[in-house]
């Protein structure tokens, strides 16, 4: 808990003359979950892509401190360096599981791939790890040799999460992880994510437009509008006592059930 995991300072990304995101600064500590909310086009996905190094930022600094304590400036990393972090330190959970899974490769192969990518060469061990993770994400173990194409959307998303976490990442980026799922499946997924975050000590950055999701998952919250962070703080404080006009609008617009 001694040093921050991720330090973002004055991050900026433009699309031509349009602002993707600007003046974003925050610090994420080990074991923390940061939520980013805002409407479509508010820059939250742009921000996430910049953080994960998928998009080159136009200014500012992103510092990531790896397992050995070495700090990397994400924006200046070579492709090889970025991929090493993505492989060994990070995970990225896509909104659409199709973007994060190999649809034609069996569930076991999907979960095992990150292990093989890090040089594991023992079939029995890889398979055992895959079985263990299927169980953790509540996919029946006898589905291990089935391809994700034959899975429901919720199962695909859980499989993607198993694949993301099998390597024991320290930081997980999630882009609308519960988007497009049935509410019952969403609940199960939220519970799963929360348990994993707690038990594995993961840090996470979660982008979503669903305020209920951040309330349950995120320790801290940033509210984005027009590319800028307009408000940030403790999740329940931001949601229950919003200070900025846009946050107030956002919170008051949620349908109550």
């Amino acid at each position, binding site marked *: 808990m001694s040093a921050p995991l991720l330090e973002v300072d004055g991050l900026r990304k433009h699309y031509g003359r349009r602002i993707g995101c600007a003046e974003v600064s925050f610090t994420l500590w080990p074991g923390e979950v940061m939520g980013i909310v805002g409407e479509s086009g508010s820059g939250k996905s742009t921000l996430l892509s910049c953080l994960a190094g998928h998009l080159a930022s136009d200014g500012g600094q992103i510092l990531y401190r790896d397992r050995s304590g070495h700090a990397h400036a994400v924006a200046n990393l070579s*492709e*090889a360096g970025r*991929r090493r972090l993505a*492989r060994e330190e990070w995970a990225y959970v896509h909104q659409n599981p199709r973007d994060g899974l*190999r649809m034609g*490769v*069996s569930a*076991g*192969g999907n979960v*095992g*791939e*990150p*292990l*093989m*990518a*890090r040089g594991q*060469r*023992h*079939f*029995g061990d*890889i*398979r055992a790890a895959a079985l263990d993770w299927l169980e953790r994400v509540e996919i029946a173990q006898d589905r*291990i*040799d089935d391809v994700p194409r034959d899975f429901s959307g919720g199962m695909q998303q859980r499989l993607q999460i198993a694949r993301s976490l099998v390597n024991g990442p320290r930081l997980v980026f999630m882009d609308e992880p519960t988007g497009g799922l049935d509410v019952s499946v969403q609940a199960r997924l939220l519970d799963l994510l929360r348990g994993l975050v707690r038990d594995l000590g993961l840090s996470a950055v979660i982008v979503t437009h669903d305020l209920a999701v951040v309330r349950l998952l995120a320790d801290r919250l940033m509210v984005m509008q027009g590319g800028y962070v307009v408000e940030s703080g403790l999740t329940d404080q931001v949601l229950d006592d919003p200070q900025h006009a846009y946050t107030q609008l956002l919170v008051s617009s949620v349908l109550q059930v």
Partner: protein
Amino acid sequence: MSGYNFAYLDEQTKRMIRRALLKAVAIPGYQVPFASREMPMPYGWGTGGVQVTAACLVPEDTLKVIDQGADDTTNAVSIRAFFARVADIATTEHTRDASVIQTRHRIPEAPLREDQILVFQVPIPEPLRFLEPRETETRKMHALEEYGLMHVRLYEDIARHGEIAKSYAYPVRVEGRYVMDPSPIPKFDNPKLDDCPALQLFGAGREQRIYALPPYTRVESLDFEDYPFKASRPDHPCALCGARDSYLDEVVIDDAGGRMFVCSDTDYCNDRRAAGHRGEMAAPFEEMPE
């Protein structure tokens, strides 16, 4: 033969291909792009191999061409005839007499020597192709040595069939660096790639790629610790020459399910029979070709 440059290709093209070959030799297993030319044969018939052979040939060379190990199939015969005509070089069916051997899908059984070049015809040079269709991505994967995907393929085989079912084009790692598709040779031939005294060149015409294994290169077949690579062959002796160490073709001989197993390397089989070896279906007497 007037009207054609020696060995068909113009000298500029040969230079271009030789440069690619040099680069390929310098970076074993790396796929070097080259400007593949139209050849007087359809893609899939060995246009890549033919261009590499044409760029390597010198008038003193003796050429052997095999298709699935055989010297007498249509493809082998026409390529041999082609070079005999456009380069006016000697040809042979004997592995030991050849200085350049162009092959499709086999490595000869007879051990190769330092003064020989083996040219492979390659349909699909990219071993990662079927797992990752994006060429931009596979190039990055090679550059960054991200080969986890290759093992996914083997994993899937074991999960589905209980063993690595891939029996040809079995992927290899070259000098602990590049993962390479050895062209559709049977995996039985994979061990011959390793530490081979001859220069091995690979040409993919349609895909415009050349790659190479310099002599005595370390070539390992990918596998798992608990499922090690096995070079398999049908568990029979050759029905003609009785060989137990050669790769066999299965030949159906009647419409009642009868079949025989014979050496796919016709030259090897002939040599053995000439030396007096007999398989159980060998003719009592035959006149051996010279």
